[in-house]
């Protein structure tokens, strides 16, 4: 038997997770319920994050940064007007997750905690330089999304810790695109790519998803690409730099070889989208 607990504060949730050895948080339940039904995970206590005030919703901080609560549903993120310019890529990625039912159920915290290598948020958040706020028995700490995924399904999230929020730098004028290649619409990505290009052409950020345990970004290669987006050779060099850091799996969605081939295709695709946006 599993007991469902409903704390109303983060502190209470953390205390409940610490009090029961086999407890785990539950957010939207989109993934966790399916995994439990398949017998993949079991826990004596589920700590629902649903009734904790302040965990859901998107706000603009005084300094212009945007904070997204961990319990914010994909549907809300997908339609949030504050996610503009350089952050629009996150809104686009949210809108491409699964289908309407899952988008109304799943949360950003749940998706990132689960750390499916193919999750759409991982490359989109990496492209936005998001910072996670994590609360646990030792207090609260912040972790960059770029340091968050440590290995296949292994993250910086420790035992008994919960993600409470994602903080994004203040948006600036930029064109952005998110592309995902999937077997059928609504499926997880075989490979995906998030890109944001500053309006003055001075900064470009690119993240690849589903081609390794975590999202792939290379700020040095981005700096070299900057100002040469129209040069096919520079783009090819850039795509190769990212593909060299990839470590894709062979699975039902595609072979490792195929995923590597998708990286340059995705990069050309997002560049094409962006050039259309900036004219």
């Amino acid at each position, binding site marked *: 038997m599993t007991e469902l607990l409903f704390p109303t504060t983060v502190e209470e949730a953390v205390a409940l997770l610490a009090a029961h050895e086999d407890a785990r948080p539950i957010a939207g339940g989109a993934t966790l319920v399916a*995994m439990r039904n398949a*017998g993949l995970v079991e826990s004596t206590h589920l700590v629902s994050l649903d009734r904790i005030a302040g965990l859901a919703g998107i706000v603009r901080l005084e300094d212009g940064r945007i904070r997204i609560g961990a319990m914010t549903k994909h549907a809300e993120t997908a339609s949030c007007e504050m996610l503009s310019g350089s952050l629009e890529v996150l809104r686009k990625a949210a809108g491409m997750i699964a289908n309407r039912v899952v988008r109304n159920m799943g949360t950003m915290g749940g998706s990132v905690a*689960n*750390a499916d290598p193919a999750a759409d948020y991982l490359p989109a958040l990496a492209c936005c330089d998001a910072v996670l706020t994590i609360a646990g028995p030792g207090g609260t700490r912040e972790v960059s999304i770029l340091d968050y995924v440590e*290995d296949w*399904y292994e993250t910086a999230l420790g035992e008994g810790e919960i993600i409470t929020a994602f903080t994004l730098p203040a948006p600036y004028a930029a064109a952005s695109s998110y592309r995902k290649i999937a077997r059928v619409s609504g499926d997880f990505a075989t490979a995906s790519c998030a890109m944001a290009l500053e309006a003055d052409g001075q900064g470009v950020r690119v993240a690849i998803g589903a081609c390794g345990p975590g999202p792939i970004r290379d700020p040095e290669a981005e700096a070299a690409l900057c100002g040469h987006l129209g040069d096919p050779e520079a783009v090819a060099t850039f795509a190769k730099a990212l593909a060299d850091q990839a470590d894709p799996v*062979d699975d039902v969605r595609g072979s490792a070889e195929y995923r590597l081939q998708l990286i340059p295709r995705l990069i050309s695709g997002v560049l094409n989208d962006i050039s259309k946006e900036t004219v």
Partner: protein
Amino acid sequence: MKIAGEFEIDAPRAEVWEKVRDPQVMVQCIPGCEGIEQIDATTYRSQVSVKVGPIKATFNLKVEVVSEEAPHTVLSRTSGEEGTRASVVSSENVLRLAETPEGGTLVSYEADVSMTGRLGKFGLGIFRKKADQLAGVFVENFRAKLGVSA
């Protein structure tokens, strides 16, 4: 699913062979291995736990040495299940030790693994990555046991 790999150990083949065939050494080197018990001349029982993200599994394994040619080849067969759970795993394994020109040993392994039940659903792609990672840990442990560096 085929898993294969090789690594070099800076120790003579005879010594590596002896360690590879010593259950007490192996239990300390195999990541997640909780015990190895010898049943008869060619059969062993072992418990091994693995963890992939939120999924934890403990297997009760039977390892049968099908044939061995000292000091260079062991063919074995592993079969087992996950306690009372539905997952069943089996594999055919080949282990080879070759002498390197520098007097060390090149260890190579191949395993053809099949898995059914709850873990089969999770996707073998990830398990292959996990196997590679565990192999890396094994090599580190094994080198430490032999007192050699990488």
